[in-house]
């Protein structure tokens, strides 16, 4: 928190410096837009360096959390610098609209990303278990294999195939175990998966004898484990996936900003 305050104060001071400088140049009838424009461009480049830092973890370029907070405060700072530079919220010409649209898109996806980064890890911690994202497919496959072996055992030992048939029914347990489910429900922290499992359980129990019920209980315990794993998968997928939007838009913004720089240098 102290670090965030530090970055916030530094960003505020930087903005104030640029504002005063811009006003001074503006009062002297100079090209004040050049000051704010260069400031925006400089901060954008600094923000892009965060991605570079992640690619060079072996270099002693400050900690990842330092860069993260720098990126957050820099991101908010550049929005205000951008407004100082453009003077308006939305421009007239199509080219400028494209540039501004790109800037706002990057800013908005960044703010959404920040929200995700700050809230989703807490939810994951609250689930009580930890799963490594890359190993989730393997764990799902293991759970599925375990569930199917339990069903085979149940069929062999009880001579009843009720559980096996139910497992293979359409949109039933097989459908659930084959891959992560209830993606969108999970990312909004819904309870649909839990209800679905409970529903499957109560639906099946009336047709099972005591021996089968013991297997059924084990299978639905596995289903609950899988549900929590699905939750982890969905949340981690979003935690990684929002960058699929933010980074390409940022690249586009930098290209347009570079072109804007060329245009300004050539035409003004």
């Amino acid at each position, binding site marked *: 928190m102290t670090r965030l305050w530090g970055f916030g104060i530094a960003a505020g001071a930087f903005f104030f410096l640029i504002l005063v400088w811009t006003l001074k140049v503006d009062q002297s009838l100079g090209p004040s837009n050049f000051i704010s424009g260069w400031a925006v461009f400089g901060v954008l480049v600094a923000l892009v360096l965060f991605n570079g830092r992640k690619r060079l973890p072996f270099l002693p370029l400050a900690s990842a959390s330092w860069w993260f907070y720098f990126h957050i405060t820099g991101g908010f700072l550049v929005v205000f610098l951008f407004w100082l530079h453009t003077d308006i919220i939305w421009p007239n010409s199509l080219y400028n609209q494209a540039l501004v649209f790109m800037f706002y898109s990057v800013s908005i996806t960044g703010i959404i990303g920040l929200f995700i980064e700050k809230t989703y890890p807490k939810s994951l911690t609250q689930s009580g278990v*930890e799963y490594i994202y890359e190993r989730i497919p393997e764990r799902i496959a293991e759970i599925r294999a375990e569930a199917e072996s339990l069903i085979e055992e149940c069929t062999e030992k009880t001579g009843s195939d009720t559980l096996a048939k139910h497992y293979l029914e359409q949109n039933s347990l097989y459908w659930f175990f084959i891959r992560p489910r209830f993606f969108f429900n999970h990312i909004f922290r819904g309870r649909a998966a839990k209800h679905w499992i409970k529903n499957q359980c109560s639906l099946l129990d009336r047709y099972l004898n005591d021996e089968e019920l013991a297997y059924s209980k084990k299978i639905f315990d596995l289903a609950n484990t899988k549900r929590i794993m699905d939750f982890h998968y969905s949340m981690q997928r979003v935690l990684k996936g929002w960058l699929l939007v933010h980074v390409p838009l940022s690249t586009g913004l930098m290209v347009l900003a570079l072109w804007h720089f060329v245009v300004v240098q050539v*035409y003004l």
Partner: protein
Amino acid sequence: MDENEFAHDKSQYERPNFPYRCGRGVLWQKPCYQGPNLDGSCGGVSECTPALKGSRWQCKRSKSAGGACEDGPTPYGECGLKRTPCAPKPTLRVYRGRLALLVAILIVALIGFLQAFYPINNRFFKSSDLNPISKAHQKFAQESGCTTCHASHNKGPGALVKALVTKTDLSANCVNCHTFAGPSSKAHNGGIKKDHDYQDTHCQMCHLEHKGESFNTKVLTGKQCNFCHKTKFESFSRGHPEFREKFPYLKRNSIKFNHVSHFNKHFEKSKNKGPKTCTGCHNITSADRAVRSFGFDVVCAECHARQIISKNLNLITLPEMPLPESEEDLIDRNEVFSFCAGPVMIEMDANMDELKKRMSGPERKKMEAERRKMEAERKNTEMEEFEAVSTDSVTVISAYLLNLKDKDSSEEYATPIQELILEMAGNGTDRMAQLIEEHSANGMAKKLLAGLHPEVLKRAACAWALNEEYEPPIQSEYGGWFANLVSVGYTPFGHADPVAKSWIEFALAATAGEEDQQKRELAKAMQKELVDPKDGVGSCIKCHAVTAKKSAKGKEQLFVEWEITWPELKPFVFYSHKNHIDMLGVDDSCQHCHVMDDKAKYKDSFETEDPAEFVSNFRSIERNQCVTCHSENQVAQECQLCHIYHLKPGFKKTMMTVAKTQPSINN
């Protein structure tokens, strides 16, 4: 989470930076232990790479992958747990990189495409355009497009790179169309004070473009003015300097019109003639920076027209002449007689010769004797009964033209006047014109003697030479040149009479640069009489101011303000009377600002020829009078409302041609 799960012999090290992930994992099956290769091929076809130990192949599967398998390698050294290869898929990181690259390529391609195929004025997407330019500039940029102002535009990549490292001067292109009365790169075009060190400026300091079609590039703000001006203030009502003393009546008018005396005295006396309000004389329909008055015929003629035609010019007067046959008498009457009556006599003689031929001898002798007797009697009468017909003195004009030291001394004027009279009797206006030309610029005689028929001078001179009172024919009632008993003069036709004006200009010019004291005195005397406000010719100077200025030759000279010249309009100040009249009403709106000052010595201002020494018969206008309306939350008070930045802004003719020939931008 079980920490032992990640022990070195139980778990493989995860490498999320690897670009591919196992194809089995993608299908939610158990991924192979080895995972995909860096090139994207499957790395898990076999569980391990067996090693030859002695003569036997040994399984080398790691403990974390389950340890050595039971079956072990084949006799040929191949893994015994072979699988069909999977199709590894890229990780999210790779997809992210590809998407970013795709977006960058798309944008670069779009910019390149638009630059290559739609370089000029494409209406869809101007990739080099900040915003559309203002409508005022659009039509002038239509022919050359962006290159009208931006030289590097559409000149290829080389020009772009060059422009990146060189400084462009956009202002240089502005003056291709715009003109000013001073240097364009200096503040106020260097036009407020001479020898002032003006700051360097460029057009873009104040005039912004590419702010949209409807943007007004001329609108400025007060802070832009405050940047240069030492006296900085918030607004007109807050801090603007007070108007200078005597504002706005800084220089005197060209016409001496005393508003106080006219309103308080003359108009009171003649209630029917005088106007009731200011609009009786001032034309508010064409009011702008000044509210000009109607002309003489509308405003002044009613009272002043008669005064003009009652003041004559006295060109020459017959003074008291010397006695015949005296030493000063130069006039040979016989010669004069031949000038004046000669042609008639010759005709009579010819008729007589004809008569004589028909007459008998005695009759003819008798007639000749009578004629000789008559001529002898006329000579005797002149000698014995001489009485001068005039006791006047020489006119100031004659004295000046003949350079007479003392125009009242007959000894001084006798000879030149008699010579002049003889010349006039002989040649009419020739000698007079010659004298005028000797005292003025070429061609002046034409103006001064315009309309003077030679016979007018000749007949008067003949009579005077013979010491006879000239009996003029019936004179014109409408003015012009005339000769009477003992003088020749001119009556102005009316207002703006060209001959009267010329004589006044001649009199004023006579003193300029005249170094000869005597001539100067004579010129002054003539000037005093002709420009006398009351009795001068036409009484022109009663109303028209006389101002000292430098002539074309650089000499200080007096000029008459014939035209109504309004106070010199300052090029950086603007004021609209019309807007104020429209707002305040016609009847008494003038008195809101223009308040008459009864005590002002207005008339005295015209005693001197310096127009700057002026006392108006109106009180100065003060800033507070304007602030009454022009202040916060009331009427506008921007600098540009009253002040103009540029010195006489205009356009080049070529630019006008372009504007005329170009069709609309929308075509």
